[in-house]
């Protein structure tokens, strides 16, 4: 497996932010009222994050990956419920991408990734209506637990 470099991790986060920006545009069209306002607020946040990531990548001497013109949606979005599910799905993707940044050796980037994924995990929880024990982590990354020690 190729080592995770700062640039590759930041590029993955940038791609996830671009996907979120596109997806929030789709989701927002099916939302109304305060929920739609929340989606607009988050869309703005993702746009700002995209610009920040692009600047970081440029500073490292690389060319920021370009957004795609179109993204395949993971499932049909036709009402508020599916729009909210899409928003949660997008935030999960952003969370996974920022978790990738935590794997690089630069401690400043680790902190950056960890704090950014807290925001996306909170937004995912908002849309999903529930929290997760391990935001951003795949099941394969979790170890089978050992029997717990007796209560102290």
């Amino acid at each position, binding site marked *: 497996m190729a080592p*995770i470099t700062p640039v590759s991790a930041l590029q993955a986060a940038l791609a996830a932010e671009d996907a979120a920006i596109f997806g929030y545009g789709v989701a927002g069209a099916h939302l109304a009222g305060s929920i739609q306002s929340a989606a607009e607020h988050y869309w703005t946040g993702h746009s700002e994050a995209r610009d920040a990531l692009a600047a970081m990548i440029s500073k490292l001497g690389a060319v920021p990956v370009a957004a795609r013109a179109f993204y395949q949606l993971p499932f049909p979005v036709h009402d508020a419920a599916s729009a909210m599910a899409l928003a949660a799905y997008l935030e999960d993707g952003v*969370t996974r991408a920022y*978790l990738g940044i*935590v*794997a*690089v*050796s630069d*401690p400043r980037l*680790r*902190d950056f*990734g*960890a*704090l950014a*994924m*807290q925001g*996306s*995990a*909170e937004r*995912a*929880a*908002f849309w999903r209506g*529930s*929290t*997760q*024990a*391990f*935001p*951003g*982590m795949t099941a394969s*990354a*979790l*170890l*089978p*637990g*050992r029997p*717990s*020690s007796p209560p*102290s």
Partner: protein
Amino acid sequence: MLLASAAAVPVLLGAAACRSEDVFAGPDPLASPPRPAPEVITLQAVIAAEESLIRLYKMAIDGGPGATAEARRLNSLLAQHEQHLVQLRARLILPPGQGGTASPQDRGSPGGSSPKGGSARVTVARLRAAERASAAGLVRRLADVEPALAQLFASIAASDATHVMVLGG
């Protein structure tokens, strides 16, 4: 093929002790148990903090009104902390006879005060503060550990951050 019976081991160690004084001039490395690696100490401290947070939740639930929406909410968050603890402990393998948690000076509740011993009711505000402190504490430790463990810490910190939100933060 080398076979090391229990009786042979002291002999082998004795032979090693007879080697060049240039190499073995320092203090005997077997004179006392080896110190755990810094990463082990960090993991032990994180485990102790997670255990402390779990105790705090149990106190809040035990002292609460029972089968209410709030109790269900707290039990749901408690279950996620218990999952955190399972994953943290799964990454700590110590020789038999050594404890799995931090030394007393490394212990401490994420909320900054010990949940032990007090009979005062644990409020949602206190849980919220403890969750916030836990998330911040985990992020502070990211630089001390290897990447896979850093990612686990970051994921648990993100989970804690969502708990703050659920608790009204």
